[in-house]
């Protein structure tokens, strides 16, 4: 009897120790994830002279001065860059999700010859990265005079296999075909059924994929950097990379931190508001166990 009790207490002590270790690991990882961004915010609030003195753990009062300087910088037009990125990211988010849902619905709701092949084909091309066709893409866009245009950054989003796959999986779980039949009986044409009945039913999936498409477009660097040459068309990642190539010693460092902060701010705001649904969306689209 007494041995059993001591076994029990031993188990409890073990569990407590384990919990302490686990929480310590979690706190450390949290620190690691936030530390660099915290430093960024602190440094974005310090003047160039203060930054030259080195490390500081507490923010200073120069935040709005840096913001003004960064916003009005002559060589790096960050407000313009943010506007450009916003235009591209919003358009491609809308186009990607709408057409992916349309494609998924086409395969989910209709029977047609070659349907299985179509589905297999989309699955097969899903993992091919865009870099391996970048050369041909660049060549074609140059030939069509579409460099320095946003069309090559937005319209290809119509064919997004990963988003398609997510939509297809979502429709399988929430969209019974009876609903579509009922709409047909009511005389709704197929296109209207999709726009007015199907889209509202898959709203959560649309929202999640819009966020992911927005974020990946906002952060996209490789293709835009190769396509856009005109200064007034450049997007935020290109400007940030330019910052790296510029002569560093001449820079007001407070401004540099502010540029970086501005580059990630829109996505951070979206994330802080919608983190729950974003995290839920991460798991969907992967293999089921």
């Amino acid at each position, binding site marked *: 009897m007494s041995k059993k009790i001591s076994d029990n207490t031993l188990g409890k002590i073990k569990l407590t120790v384990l*919990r302490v270790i686990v929480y310590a690991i979690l706190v450390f990882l949290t620190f690691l994830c936030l530390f660099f961004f915290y430093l960024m915010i602190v440094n974005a609030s310090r003047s160039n002279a203060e930054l030259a003195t080195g490390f500081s753990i507490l923010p200073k009062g120069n935040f709005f001065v840096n913001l003004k300087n960064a916003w009005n910088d002559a060589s790096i037009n960050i407000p313009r860059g943010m506007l450009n990125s916003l235009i591209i990211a919003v358009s491609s988010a809308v186009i990607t999700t709408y057409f992916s849902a349309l494609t998924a619905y086409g395969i989910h709701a209709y029977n047609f010859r070659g349907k299985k092949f179509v589905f297999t084909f989309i699955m097969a091309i899903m993992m091919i990265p865009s870099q391996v066709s970048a050369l041909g893409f660049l060549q074609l866009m140059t030939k069509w005079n579409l460099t320095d245009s946003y069309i090559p950054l937005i319209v290809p989003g119509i064919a997004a296999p990963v988003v398609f796959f997510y939509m297809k999986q979502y429709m399988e779980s929430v969209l019974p075909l009876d609903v579509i039949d009922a709409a047909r009986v009511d005389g709704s044409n197929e296109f209207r059924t999709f726009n007015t009945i199907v889209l509202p039913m898959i709203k959560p999936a649309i929202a999640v994929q819009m966020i992911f498409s927005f974020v990946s477009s906002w952060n996209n660097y490789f293709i835009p950097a190769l396509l856009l040459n005109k200064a007034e068309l450049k997007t935020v990642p290109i400007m940030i990379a330019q910052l790296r190539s510029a002569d560093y010693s001449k820079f007001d460092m407070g401004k540099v931190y502010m540029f970086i902060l501005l580059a990630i701010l829109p996505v951070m705001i979206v994330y802080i508001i919608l983190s729950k649904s974003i995290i839920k969306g991460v798991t969907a689209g992967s293999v089921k166990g």
Partner: protein
Amino acid sequence: MEKIQTGTGKKLKSVSYAKWGYIFIAPFFIAYIIFTLVPQLLTVYNSFFETYRIGLQQVGPNFVGLGNYKALFQPDANGTILIFKYALNTMILWIAGAVPQFVIAMLLALFFTSTRLNIKGQSFFKTVIYMPNLIMAAAFSMLFYTLFSRVGPIQALLENWGVIDHTFDFFAIRVSVRGMIALMNFLMWFGNTTIVLMAGIMGIDQSLFESATIDGANSVQVFFKVTMPLLMPIFVYCLITAMIGGIQMFDVPQVLSKGDGVPNGTTRTLVMYLNGYLKTRNLGMSGAISVIMFIITGGLGAIVYKMLSAPYKDQTRKHRERKGNVL
């Protein structure tokens, strides 16, 4: 069999709607053909031609067969075959980030799903660890450069502590630049992997854990004999998609090293190599690199494809079996 099915009344009804299926999937395929398939074929085509510029003078296109591929595997003046060097760099950078990424993610997934540990504040931790995944890689990399540069705060702090002197430069040391890239990749991806693995563990039938524990298995045994085998498909899926992502590694090392892969090209990745040729419009060489990358990612992608389509294959098989029974 197929014909008999199309002959039934139900199928006939859906035949009249079939054209809508084609209409709805048409935009996808038109966009795919124009913006991916044709460029892909052009890329392969270009890899067999010599096309480049010297200054303002355009050379080619001249057909050279496999000449570009041969040139790619030709050792340079120092005797190094650059594509091997950059492939090795890419692999080292990926492994250095991916090993901690998967180890930590696996641990966290186990912690979060353990009913015995009953970790509080899970949604807070998940929110924090996933956050770096959404950060613009170029900006994150620029931030690291700024913090670790010779005029940055980390250097100043370490100098104050007397750990390093003023001549020290993080970006002149191979291990430190590679370490930074690996750290960034780790931070950007471990949260994502944690969440996916967690979903995988939660998808496992809980009664299996219970019966294993009742049979006297300890937690290590449960992990290796129950959790891991059942989690394998998802784990492999994560691993291979991470590999495909690793091969595409570009933004972080490009911005951090200003495209040079400092020091001495030891942090230059395959895509940075490709990007260099694309920038100078050397179509032949960039074509050859693209084709090689396509083959590697295609091979890895085939495995992912098999795994993702497995449930669908099952479904159709079951579907057929069911139909067969009815018939």
